[in-house]
Structure formats: structure tokens, C-alpha cells
């Protein structure tokens, strides 16, 4: 009987507690530093693409979702720093399992997995990302500052990020 009373007092106490719900579209929870989201292709500082079209990422991909068609660089069409470049570079996001093997396989650090996880589309065709889409900077999903001081999960986030010597006040992109 006493246990029942305890149960009732527990639920009653919750009435006066602030809900722990994170209101998702308004508040986007920071992702962990090693989170693997949407891919990004990188460029050298001089603007040339890092990708040389070697297809090692496509070979490493367990779900076979990367398609690379290489082409020679010519003096009047120099796209990448090496001999060849990726004429077509497509990732089928509907198949991708975000394992990050492509990132590991790449000898030039040309492809990395970023923080963006909001990838839903209303058609499957839209999920095939082309090279130009992958070269664009993805939306930054880590808020630049803590949103809500009462937000317990974000405090937890601070603690976890502290282990990596990063705070939510800084941009984890810098850790790339």
C-alpha cells in the first residue's frame, strides 16, 4: 500500500517539473563530434578538387552506393590536383548506411562525413546526390551556443563535448 502512495507522489512531483522533451524542429540537439552524417567532397585551398577519381571509396562501400566515373585532366580543363578527376561522383543516399568506410578508404581526404542528418526527400531520385551537391557545404547542425540553460540533455552534451576538449560554443567544424 505504501508503495502505491510512493508511486502516486512520484507522478505528482513530475507535474511541477519542467518537461525534458526537446522541441525538435525549433531546437536541434548538437551532434557528437564523431557523428557520421551527410557526406561532403572537399577542395584544395586553390579551388581544385581533392578527389582524383580513383574509385577506392566505391570499392570500399559495403552498400555499393557510390558511383565514380573518372576523366583525364587536360591543361584547359583542370579540375583536380592529380592526373584524373571524377567526371561523375554520385552517392545514393537511399542506400548509404553511413558507415564511413569511404572516408577511411580515401587517400586524399577528399570525402568526409559531416553533421547534417536531415536528409529526407519526397522522391527517391532526389536522394541521389551529385558531385555539385556534395561539394556544397552542408547545413551546420551544431548550434553555435547552448539554447536553453534548463535543458538537461544539452548539459550532458557539454560534458561529453568537454571530453573532446570542445564546447558547444565553438564550431566542431574546426575539428575536421
Amino acid at each position, binding site marked *: 500500500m505504501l508503495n*502505491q502512495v510512493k*508511486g*502516486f507522489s*512520484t*507522478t*505528482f512531483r*513530475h*507535474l511541477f*517539473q519542467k*518537461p*525534458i*522533451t526537446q*522541441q525538435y524542429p525549433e531546437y536541434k540537439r548538437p551532434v557528437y563530434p564523431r557523428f557520421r552524417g551527410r557526406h561532403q567532397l572537399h577542395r584544395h585551398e586553390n579551388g581544385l578538387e581533392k578527389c582524383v577519381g580513383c574509385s577506392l571509396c566505391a570499392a570500399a562501400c559495403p552498400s555499393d552506393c557510390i558511383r565514380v566515373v573518372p576523366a583525364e585532366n587536360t591543361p584547359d580543363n583542370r579540375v583536380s590536383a592529380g592526373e584524373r578527376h571524377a567526371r561523375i561522383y554520385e552517392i545514393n543516399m537511399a542506400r548509404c548506411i553511413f558507415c564511413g568506410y569511404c572516408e577511411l578508404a580515401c587517400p586524399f581526404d577528399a570525402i568526409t562525413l559531416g553533421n547534417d542528418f536531415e536528409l529526407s526527400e519526397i522522391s527517391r531520385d532526389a536522394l541521389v546526390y551529385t558531385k555539385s551537391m556534395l561539394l556544397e557545404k552542408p547545413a551546420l547542425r551544431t548550434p553555435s551556443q547552448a539554447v536553453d540553460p534548463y535543458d538537461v540533455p544539452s548539459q550532458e552534451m557539454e560534458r561529453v563535448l568537454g571530453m573532446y576538449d570542445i564546447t558547444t560554443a565553438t564550431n566542431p567544424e574546426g575539428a575536421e
Partner: protein
Amino acid sequence: MVDGVILTVIKSVVLASVLMGFFAYMTWVERKLIGRFQARYGPNRVGPYGLMQPIADLGKMLQKENMIPEMAHRKLYIAAPFIAMTCAIGAFGLMPFGGVATIPGTDWTFHLYIADTSVSLLVVAAIGSLGFYGLMIGGWASSSKYALLGGMRAIAQLVSYEVAFTLAVIGVIIQAGSLSFINISNAQEHLWYVIPQFLGFLVFFVAAVAESNRPPFDLTEADGEVVAGYHTEYGGMRYAMFAAAEFINAITLSALGAVLFLGGPSGPFLPGPIWMLLKIGAFLFVLIWIRATLPRVRFDQLMKIGWKVLLPVATLNLLLTAVAVVYL
């Protein structure tokens, strides 16, 4: 009919509409409160504080396809939700919200209750029990095993708890010496019956939770066992009518508890209807609190509580009341 036909019709329409609105917003209150009990927000997307949620729900329900299962008994299948709904609203009709009121600016007076008979309590109990036909017919007519099991459970539960419920209420009747709600609430002018009839009140409350099919006694629609019970095969507005009937039953039983044990519409400073609403609200709050706290009982536990605990306690309460009324 204390006020003549026309005024009674007007009062009935007003009461039924207000009851439906009250029900609609009680679903919002319930979802909000359950949310807060569980440290989450509850509905907060439609309108400010999610206040448009009941209207959005209604809009969704109305858009649903009107489907009837092929093997169902068509006429009974269609009739069942109407039976449940009619009985739920009808049972509320006798609830008193005060004595005589005057329309401001005139000397026209009317009564704050639709009717008062010498057998009000019996009428409410009878109409309330009639509503269970809706559940049983609905369960049987949809020709689905889960619906049938849910309907049968509802009847078994009703029979078990109606006995204890009635015995608990008889204590109040003996003490007040009347079956009329007006007389019963007037008899509590000095002392609410919740104090002298405390045992009866406890039995009444547990039985009321069971009769309104609310957790922890919602075995008729235990989703883990019988999918959704008697309304498994219902969708759209027909389902909504079953849900409404169930919630209105809970409101009716809260009103009954307020009249029988908490003095009905009487109270200091505030007018009768406000007091009545406050007391109904208090009951509903406790019902929601119980829902947020207790897990569902097993069916054998349900029967054990009904026959081995509530019935003896209610009988004891009845005997004590009878002895006290005769010899004190």
C-alpha cells in the same frame, strides 16, 4: 420537466452541446496532464498550447473512410456507437447544477437541472448500464475475435462492478432517505457524505473507475491482449463516438460522485454550476492521475477485487449505515 416543454428542450440542447465541448477539451486536458505527469509536453503544435488539438482531431476523424467489415452485421454494427453515445449523454441529463436561477434583468426563473424525479439515481444507473449494450453489440456485430472478446470482457466487468457500485450508493440513499439528486445534495448541506460514508466512497470510486473503463481497469481495450477491444473494427467518426461515450461516462460518474459524496452544486461564494464543475474537475483530475500512475490489472485480479474486496466492503458499509440510521 420542471420548466415546461420549450425551456426543457432548450436546456437539453445547451447541456448536450456544453457536454460535448467539455468532453472535447477534457481530452486535451487529459493529454496535457498525462504528458506533464510523464515529464513531457503533450500536444502543443496546433494553436497556442495545442488548444486547437480537439478540433484538428475532429477534422481528421471526419476525413476517414466509412468502412464496414464484410462479415459484420451491418445494422447492429452501425447502431452500436449510437447506442453507446445516446446512453452516455442521456445519463448526464439528470445531473443538478444548482437550484433556481433568475435570468438577469428579468424576473423569469428557471431551474438549473433538466428534470428531477424521485428515482433519479435509478434512472442514471439504468441508462448508464444500457450504454454497455453498445459495447457488447459493437463487439459482437464486427465479427472479429478481438472485438468479441473485448465486448464480453466489458459485460463481465460491468456485472462484477455494478453490484459493488450499487451497494455503495445504497448507503448514501439510506442516509439521505431519497433517490432524488436534489434531495441528496440538499441533505449534505452541513456535512458532505464523503465523511460518514467514507467506506462507501472508496468502493464507489474504485467501481466508478472500473465502470468507465479507465486505466487501471481498461481491460476491455487492453491493447496488448485484445488490440482495441470492442472498437477494434471501428474507424473514423464511429470510433470517435465510442471514445466520446467512454469519456462522457467518466464525466457522468464524476458528476455522480460529486452529487452523492461532495454535496453536488452547493458551496460557499461561487454559484452552483461553478461548484459542480470544480467537483467534477477534481474527480477527473484524480482519474487522470490514476491513469498516469497505475499499471493495468490482470483479468483475474479485476474479478478478485470486484467480488472479494469491493463487495464485502460495500456490504459492510451498507450494514453499518443501516444500523446507524435505525439506532442512532
